[in-house]
C-alpha cells in the first residue's frame, strides 16, 4: 500500500497546534515514525532571489529516493516545488511525497509514474485532513524507448544512454546533469530510465533539482542547476560523471543502449540486459499493481460460516 503525505505552509496543520510549514495531509495508517522522514525530505532551495520575481520559473524537484532506515528499504517518490506566497505573505513551497512499498512498484518505474498527469498535486488549497484511501500507482510502461527529448535537446537521442549505462549493480556511478532554468528534466530522466529493464528502474534514484543529499539517502542521477553550489560541488567529485547540458555534448559511442535510445524498441524486441547482470532478475514479467479493495474476493466469504457474505 502506498502512502502519501503533503507538506506546505498553512495557517493550520494536521497535527493540533501546528501552523506554518507543516504536514497538512497524509494517508490514514501512515506509520508515525515515517512522517518525520518524509518531512525531512521536504527541503527546497529557491533558485531565484525574492526580488527577481521569477517564482513561476523555479525548478521543480521530482525525485526518487531509497532509504534503508527503519530496517526495510523504502522508496520515496516526491514532487517539491515553490508555491508562491503563503498566508503570511512569505515564500511557500509544496512537497508531495509517496511512500512506495515493494508490491506497488509498477513496470514503468518511478520516473514514468511521476510523468503521469495528475499523479502529484501541484497546488494545495484544502483544509488539513487525512486521506482515507491509499494512493494507487498507475500501471503502464514507456512506449518504444526512443529518446525524443534527448534528441530535441542535444541532437542525439543516444545521449540518454550515458545515464543508463552507468547504472551498475546496486548503486552505480553518480551522474550529474547540469541544466539551465527552463529545461524540463523529468522527461529526460524518464527516457534514460526507459532503456533499463523494469526491475532495475526502481533501483535508480534521481532528483531533477538536486541541491544536497539528504542524510541516509542515495541519489544516483542528479540534476543540478548550472552555476549553483551543488553544481560546483559535483564538479569537485572525482567519482561523478558530469554531463553539461548547457553546452554541446561529445558524440556517444555506438552501444546497443545508444542504438535503442536513438531508434526505439522494435516490436518484439527484448529488454537489454547488459546493465542488470548483477541484479537478480525476476522470473516473470512485472506483476500488475493490485488494487486493494475493501470488498476483495477473499473477503466475499464469511470465514465463520464459510458461506457467501450477504451484503445489505
Amino acid at each position: 500500500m502506498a502512502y502519501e503525505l503533503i507538506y506546505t505552509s498553512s495557517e493550520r496543520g494536521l497535527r493540533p497546534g501546528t501552523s506554518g510549514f507543516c504536514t497538512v495531509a497524509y494517508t490514514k495508517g501512515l506509520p508515525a515514525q515515517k512522517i518525520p522522514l518524509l518531512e525531512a525530505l521536504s527541503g527546497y532551495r529557491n533558485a531565484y532571489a525574492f526580488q527577481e520575481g521569477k517564482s513561476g520559473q523555479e525548478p521543480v524537484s521530482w525525485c526518487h529516493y531509497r532509504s534503508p532506515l527503519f530496517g526495510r528499504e523504502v522508496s520515496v517518490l516526491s514532487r517539491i516545488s515553490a508555491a508562491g506566497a503563503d498566508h503570511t505573505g512569505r515564500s511557500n513551497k509544496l512537497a508531495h511525497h509517496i511512500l512506495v512499498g515493494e508490491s506497488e512498484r509498477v513496470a514503468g518505474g518511478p520516473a514514468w509514474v511521476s510523468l503521469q498527469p495528475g499523479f502529484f498535486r501541484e497546488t494545495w488549497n484544502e483544509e488539513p485532513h487525512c486521506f482515507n484511501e491509499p494512493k494507487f500507482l498507475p500501471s503502464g510502461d514507456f512506449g518504444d524507448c526512443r529518446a525524443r527529448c534527448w534528441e530535441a535537446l542535444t541532437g542525439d537521442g543516444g545521449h540518454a544512454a550515458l545515464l543508463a549505462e552507468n547504472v551498475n549493480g546496486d548503486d552505480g556511478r553518480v551522474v550529474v546533469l547540469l541544466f539551465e532554468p527552463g529545461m524540463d528534466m523529468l522527461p529526460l530522466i524518464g527516457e534514460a530510465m526507459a532503456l533499463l529493464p523494469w526491475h532495475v528502474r526502481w533501483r535508480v534514484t534521481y532528483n531533477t533539482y538536486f541541491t544536497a543529499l539528504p542524510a541516509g539517502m542515495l541519489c544516483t542521477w542528479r540534476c543540478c542547476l548550472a552555476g549553483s553550489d551543488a553544481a560546483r560541488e559535483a564538479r569537485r567529485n572525482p567519482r561523478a560523471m558530469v554531463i553539461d547540458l548547457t553546452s554541446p555534448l561529445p558524440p556517444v559511442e555506438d552501444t546497443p543502449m545508444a542504438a535503442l535510445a536513438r531508434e526505439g524498441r522494435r516490436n518484439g524486441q527484448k529488454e537489454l540486459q547488459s546493465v542488470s547482470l548483477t541484479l537478480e532478475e525476476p522470473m516473470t514479467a512485472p506483476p500488475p499493481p493490485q488494487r486493494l479493495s475493501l470488498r476483495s474476493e477473499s473477503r466475499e466469504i464469511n470465514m465463520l460460516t464459510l458461506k457467501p457474505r450477504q451484503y445489505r
Partner: protein
Amino acid sequence: MDIAKETVTECYVRVVNRDGETRTCHVVRFPCTIGRVKERDLVIEDPSVSSLHASLSVNAEGQLCLEDLGSTNGIYHHYVQVPQLVITQREEVVLGQVTLVIALTEAGLEATPSVIEMARKAMPTPQSEMSAAATTASAMASPPAPTAKEETTSKSHKILKFNELSIPSNPLDGSPAATISRLVGSGRGGIVCPHCWHRFAVDEFLFIARHQSLVGDPVLGPEAPIRFMPSRFTPEGNALDAAGMSCPDMACPRCHLRIPQAASEMPPLFLSIVGAPASGKSYFLTSMTWALRSVLPRNFAIAFTDTDAVNNQILNDFEETLYLHLDPNEIVGLRKTELQGELYNQVLIDNMLVNLPKPFMFTMMPAEHHPRYQEVKAGMSRTLVLYDNAGEHFEPGMDQADNPTTQHLLHSDTIFFLYDPTKDVRFRRRISGSQDPQMEPTARVQRQEIILTEMINRIKKYSGMKSGGKSARTLLLLVSKYDVWKDLLDMELPESPWQWNSACNTCALDVDLIKNVSFAVRQLLEDVCPEVVATAESFAGEVLYLPNSALGHSPEKQEDSGMIGIRPKDIRPFWVSVPMLYFLYEGGFIPSIPEESRVRHPEAAVSCKLSGDVYFVTLPGRPMPVQVPVFFAGYQLRLPGTDLWFTVPPVKTAPNMAET
C-alpha cells in the same frame, strides 16, 4: 561533620577583594546571584567580576552549589576553572581578581587557609598591588610574603603550574588540537559543539580526511570525507589521514560536523532568538549582525567578524539582500525560514535522521586600541554563536528527538524573545492608521505567550530546573516592529543609547536610559497583554523589555506575487544592536556611563514597600501603587504618561541575604 546530608538553608561568604579588604555576608535565601551590578544579591564591585558572574543555589540533593553563569573570567578552584562546584565544607574560589571563601557556618570561614590559598596570595598581582597583597598575607598569619623579586620568581613558577593543571594531558601535542587555547581546555569543562551542543574534551576532536578517496562517513553519509582520530602528524602539527595528506580541519566527535578552529579556540557565547512564525526573527538577526559589524568596532573597540565565511554564507546573503542591494527602489525580501534544507545539517545519529540547525559564528575580540587590551584580550575573545530558527520550531509539539533544533536554548547565555505586537489583536486595536500589510484584518494573529511558555518548559525539562524555579539568566523580551507602535510608547528614544566616554576612549552604554525604556515598555505590555509579562517574569529573575524595529519601516505587498518585502531605501533599523550591547555590558565587555556623568531628574516623594520580588511604589496623586520588579531597583524611572521620576532602593541584602 557531614553537613551535606542535610539540606543547606544558609551559608557564609567572605569576599576578599584585590586590596585585601574583606566583608562577610550571610546568605539565607537561594538562589543568590553574584555579580558586579547592583541588581545582584551579592554585589562585588570589581571590574574583573562580570555583571552576572555566578549563583549560589541548593541542588536537588540539598547541597550548596556555586555555578558559573557564563562569566568572562570564570570561577577558579585550586587554579582549575570549574563550571560549578558543590560546597560541603570551607572552599575558596577566585572570581576574576576577587577571592570568595564560602562555608556553611560562620565558624567554618575561619579554618586554616590551604597551601594553595597561600600560593594564590602570591599569584600575579600588578606592581601597585603587591604590597597590599603582601600585607593581607601577613595579616592572616601566613608565611612571610615574598619580596618583590621572590614574587616574580614564584609567579612564573605558578603560571607553569596553572598550565599543567588546566590542560589535560593530550596525546595530540603538537597538533592543532594541542595549540587550542588554554581557555578552551578549561572553559566550562571542555568544548561545546556549536552544531549539536555535545560537550567534549579537546583530545576527542576528530580530524577531517582530505584525500578524495577517503569518503564515506557513517554519520554524514557516503559522500562526506571520513572523520578520524589521528595517530600521525606533520611537523606543523596537522593530522595526517590514511593517504598521508595533511588535515587541518577538525570535527565534533558526535555529529562529525566541522568546527572552525577559531570557534574552538575561543569559548562560545550562545544566543538564542525565539519568536512566533512571521515575527521577524530572520530580519532582526540580519539587521542586528549588520549593525554590530559597525557599532562594536567603531564605538566600543571590539572587532566583530565572521568566524568562518562558509558557515555564515546564508546570513551574509541576507545582509547583502537588505543592505547591499544595487537598486534601492526594488522590493527585496527574505524567504520564509524553512524547517529543512540549507539552514540545517542532516546527520545520522544512532540510526536516526537528525536535523541540526546551522550555527552562524562571529568572532568578538577587543581591538588593539581597546583601553584595557592586554588585560581583557583573553577573557573578551569569544565566539558568538547564533541560530536562525523557524518560528514553527518553537510551537508546542515540535520538540522531537529527531528535530532537536531548539536545544541551543539550554546552552544559551542569553535569550532574545521577539514579541510581535502586530500579531496581537489588542495591540492592533490601539494602533490606528497603519498601512502595514501585517496589520490587515485578514493577517494572522497568534497568542505568543504560548510560544514563550513552550520555550520555558523546554528549558526546564532538559535542564532539570524545578518547575517553580527562576533562571538566573536575563531574558530580553524584544517588542519588535517599533515603527508601527511607537506612538503607544510615551517616550522619545535616541537612535543610539550610548555616549562617548573620554575616560576609556570608547563609548559607554546608557544603561539608565535602557532601564527606563524597559520600564516604560513593561508598563505598556502589562496594560495590553499582562500574561506575556507574567510569563516572562515567572521564568527569569531579570527581564529587560526593549523596543526594536529590524527594518524601521513597514513592508509592502507585491501585487503580482502577494509576497511582502521592503525597498532598501526605506530600511532604517532601530535599536537592533541594543539588546546585544546590553548583553555585552552584562558580561563586562563594554562599559556603562559612569555614575557622575548620568543625568538625574528631580524625584517625586514616593513610598516603596517591598513584597517578594516586587516593590509597591505609591506616587503622589495616584491611588493605586505601581508595581516595580526589583530588577529595576537603583535606576531612576519615569512613570509613563507623567513627569514623575522615582527610584526604588537597591536590594542589596534583602530579600535573599543579610549582610553581617
